[in-house]
C-alpha cells in the first residue's frame, strides 16, 4: 500500500532529477551516458511543472501546477501552487511533506518508501548509471530530434504497482514524464521554463529549506 502510494511521487520526483540533468546537457544527449553526464553537471534547477493525473476513481483528470527547485547535491523542493498548495522538501536524508491544512509537517524520513525515494534521487543525480541499472531496467532511445528514457522497476514490490516511468525530451530539453501504474492510473507531468544553471542565493535557500527543520518551505 505505502509503496504504491509513495511510488508515484518518488518516481516523479526522481524523474525531475533527470530533468535537471537532461536540461543541463549540451549538446542534446545522443546516448544514455551523455544524459547521465549532463545530470551530473547540473548546478541548480528551477522549473515549472503542470501535472495531469488520470485516476480510475475520478470522472475527470486532476490537474496541478507548481515549481520545482533542485539544489545540488541532494536538496530539492517540489512546491505545488494549484489547486491546493503543498510542498515536498528533501534535505539530504530528510523528507518532509506539508500542505496548507495547517497540520504539522509530516516527516517521511523514516518511511522506507521515502528512503527509496532519496536513494533513487541521489543515484540519478550522481549520474550513477550502474546503480540506476540496478534499480531499473533502463531503455534509452534517441530519435532525433527527440529522445526517451524508459525505466521499469526491478524491485518486486514496486513492480506490483508501477508499470513504467518514461521521460522524454527534445534536444537539450526534457518535456514530459509519464508514470504508468499497473491499474491503469496515469500521471503525465510537463515541464516548462526550465533553468538548469540557477544559482540559489542564501536567502532563497533559507526560504526553501530553513535553517533548522526541513520543510521550511511554505506550501
Amino acid at each position, binding site marked *: 500500500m505505502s509503496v504504491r*502510494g509513495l511510488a*508515484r511521487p518518488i518516481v516523479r520526483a526522481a524523474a525531475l532529477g533527470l530533468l535537471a540533468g537532461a536540461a543541463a546537457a549540451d549538446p542534446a544527449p545522443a546516448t544514455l551516458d551523455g544524459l547521465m553526464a549532463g545530470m551530473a553537471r547540473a548546478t541548480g534547477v528551477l522549473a515549472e511543472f503542470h501535472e495531469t493525473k488520470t485516476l480510475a476513481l475520478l470522472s475527470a483528470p486532476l490537474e496541478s501546477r507548481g515549481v520545482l527547485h533542485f539544489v545540488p547535491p541532494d536538496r530539492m523542493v517540489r512546491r505545488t501552487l494549484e489547486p491546493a498548495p503543498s510542498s515536498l522538501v528533501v534535505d539530504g536524508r530528510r523528507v518532509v511533506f506539508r500542505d496548507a491544512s495547517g497540520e504539522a509537517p509530516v516527516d517521511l*524520513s523514516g518511511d522506507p518508501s521515502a528512503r527509496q525515494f532519496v536513494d533513487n534521487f541521489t543515484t540519478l543525480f550522481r549520474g550513477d548509471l550502474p546503480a540506476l541499472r540496478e534499480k531499473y531496467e533502463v531503455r534509452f532511445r534517441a530519435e532525433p530530434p527527440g529522445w526517451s528514457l524508459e525505466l521499469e522497476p526491478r524491485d518486486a514490490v514496486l513492480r506490483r504497482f508501477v508499470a513504467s516511468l518514461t521521460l522524454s525530451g527534445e534536444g537539450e530539453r526534457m518535456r514530459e514524464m509519464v508514470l504508468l501504474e499497473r491499474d491503469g492510473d496515469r500521471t503525465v507531468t510537463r515541464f516548462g521554463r526550465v533553468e538548469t544553471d540557477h544559482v540559489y542565493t542564501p536567502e532563497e535557500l533559507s526560504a526553501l529549506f530553513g535553517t533548522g527543520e526541513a520543510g521550511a518551505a511554505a506550501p
Partner: protein
Amino acid sequence: MSRPRAALLLALVMAAMAGYSLPRVDFSTDIASFLPDAEGDEQAVLSRMLRDTELSRTLVLAVGGPDEATAAAGGRALAAALRDHPALAWLRSGPDAELPRRVYELYFPRRLLFLSDQPEREIPKLLAEDGLREEARRLRRDLGLPAGTLLAEVAPQDPLGAFRRLLERFRGAQSTLRVSDGQFVAGDGRHAILFLATRASGFDTAVQAPLLRDVRAAFERIDAEHGGALELGQSGLARYVVAGENRARGDAVAIAGLSFLGVGGILLLALRSAGSLGLTLLPGVFGLLATTTIGTLFYGRLDGITLAFGTTLLGLTIDYPIHLLNHHAMSPLHENAWAVARRIAPSLGLAAATTMASYAGLAFTSLPGFRQIAFFSVVGVAATFAFTLLVIPVFLPASRRLPPSSQRVAAGLAGAVLALEPRRGLLAAVGIGLAAASFAALPLLRWQDELAALSAPDPAVVAEDQHVRGLVSPFDSGRFVVAVGESEDAAIAQNDRVYEALREARERGALEGVRSVHDFLWSVDLQERNWRALSAVPDLADRVERAFAAEGFRPGAFAPFREALAAGPPAPLRLAELRDSELGALVGPMLLDLGDRTGAVTLLRGLRDPEDVAGALASVPGVLLFDQQSFVTGIYREFRDATVRQMVLGSALVFGVLWLRYRRLRPTLASFLPSTLVAVAMLGALGAFGIRGNLLHAMSLVLVTGQGSDYGIFVVDSSDRSRDFRATMLSLAVSCMTTLFAYGSLALSDEPALRTIGLTTGIGILCCLLASPFSFLLLARRSPPEPEAA
C-alpha cells in the same frame, strides 16, 4: 568429643550449610519485597511498574555529535556493536520498516470499527450530505497531493477516510524522534537515539553493571573512530542502581577495611589471642550460615536487602562470645567453660530473647521484605546464641586469663560505676531531667520522607538522565494514569473512559496531551458502536456514491465499500490479538499484567492543573492517577511508620520478656529503661536541633535499643558479683567499641543513607554504654558488689 573431631564435624556442618545455601542465595534485590503487600491497587500497580514492565528494563542512549550525520553514524555504529549483546532482549535504533504493512494487515479490515471514538456524535455528522461532500472534497484534494496518493489504493474501500484517521492517530502517538538514514535522531538534530531493553530487571546489577561497561567500551571505540567528536548520554533505572551500588561499594571498601581493622584490633587488644579472636567471630559466621540455610529452605530465595540488613543485625550478636570469653577468663571460681556457659546462660538467653523480640516486631509490618528480615534475624540470633553456649566451650581451655591491661580496664570500669553510687541522687536527677527534656522535645520532631533525603543520587547521573529524557519524550514519566480492569477487555473499556475524561481536561487546558493505548486500541463496545452508527443509515452506500459523484468521482468507484458494508461487521480487535501481533511492541510497554487484572497506562504531557485532571478522573471507577514522587514518599512514610510502630511494639515485647524473667519491677526497669531512654533522647535531640528524622534514623534506633537492652540485662544480672561485674563492664566496653567500629564507621560514608545509619548507631550505642551505670544504680544496691570469692 575431642576438639579435633569437634572441629572437623563443625567444619563439615558449616561447609554443608554453605554448599547448600550459597548457590541458592540471590544477591539481587527485589524492590517489590519492600513495598506493602499488594492488596490495594496502588501498591500492586507501582510494584509492577517498578519490577515487571519494560519501562524499568529500558535504557535510552543518546549519541551526540557536532552534526546530524555524525551523530547518526555514531548511533548506527553503536547499535551494530550492541545489537547481539546477550543481556539485551531488544535494541531499537530506527523505525520498523515493516510497520506500515503490519498496520495495514491488522487494521484495514477493521477500519470501519475505528471511524470515531465518539461515534454517536461524529458519525451521523459525517454521514449527512454535507459531511459526505466534505469528505469527498478532501479525498479529491488529497489524491492530487504527492503524499495524498497514499489513498489511491484504499480509497475505493474507504471513502469515509477511516483508515486515514487511524493512521493519523498512530502518527500522533509516535515519538517526536525523526529518522536520519534509518537512525532515530532527536529533534535537536545532534543526538542519535537508541532504545535498549534488558532481559533482567533494572535492579539486577549483576547484569546491568557489565552491560553498562560494555556500552561505554563500545562507545569509546566508536568515538575514537570519529576522532573524539561524540558524546554519550544514558537514561534508565539501571544507571541509578548501578551508580548507587558503585558509590556504596567504594564507600564499603574503605569503611569495611576500617571496620575490620577496628573490630579486629579491639578484640585482639582485649583478648591478646588469635584463637580467642577466632572463637569470638565463629558464632556469628555460624549464625549467618544457619539462618541463610533455613531462610533458603523456607523462602526459596533471600533478598539482597534481607542479607545485608539481617547480617548487620546479626553482627550485634558478637556480644555473646565476648561475654562468654570474658566471664570464663575472669571466673571467680576458675570454672571451666561449660560451667561459665551454664552460669551466664540465663543472661545471654534473656539478651537473645529480648533481641529476638525486638526484631520480631518487624514481622508485624505489611512489608514482605521486613518480615523476611525479621525471620532472618530471629533465626540467626537463636543460632548464634545456641552456638555460643553449646559449641564454643568445646574449644575453650579449662582456664584462661585475660591480659593484665584488660583486667585493669575491667576493674577501672567497674570501679567507676561503683564510684557513682554515692551520687545516685544527682544521677537520678540527671536521668529524669534528660528523660523529661527528651519527651518534651519529641513533639518538635519532624519526619522527612522524601526519597532524596535517604539517598541522594549523583547529580551528574540525574542531569544526564534528564537531558536524555528531554531529547526523547515530552511526556512526564513521573505522572501517569492507570486504568485497571478485571479482564483485558474491561481494562481497555476503562481506558476509553480515561481517554474521554482526559480529552475534556485537555480541552479545558488542564494538560497538553496524552499517550495512551487508546491511540491503538478501542474497547469492543466502542468498536461495535461504530458499526451500529454506520448501520443506522441503511442506504449508506448509495448516499456515498451520490455525494462523491457530485464531487467528481466516477459512479461505481466505491463498489468495494458497498461490499464491505454488505459483508457485515468484522470481528473486533481485542487486546490479546493486538498484543500477539507484530504490533504488540507498540502497546506492550503501556500494559501491566496485574495477575488476575490488567492495567492500561496513560502518560501525561504538560500537566498544568493536577486537581482538574484528578477531578475528571474521579468519575471513572478503578482508575489511578499517580504522582510517582508523592507516591514513593508515601511508601517511605509507611516504611518509617512501620519501623516506629515496630520499635514501640518491639519495646513492649522486650519489656514483657524482661518481666517474665525478673518478675520484679526494679530489675525489669533497670535493664529496660536506659536503652529506651537513649532512643527517646536521640529522637528528642533530633527534634530539639531541628534535624528531620527519617526511616533510617528509626531503623538504626531499632539496632540501638536491641543492643542497649542487652547492656542493661548484663549489668543487672552481674551486679551482685564483683568479678562478674568487672567481666560484664569489660565485655560491654569491648562490645560497644566493636559496634562503634562496625557501624559507626558508616558515618564516614559519602552516602547520606549510610552516614545516617553510622551516626545514629554510633552515637546511640555509645550512649547506651554510658547509660549502663543507670541500670546498676536503678537496682538501688547500696552495698558494693560481693567480694570476689576465693
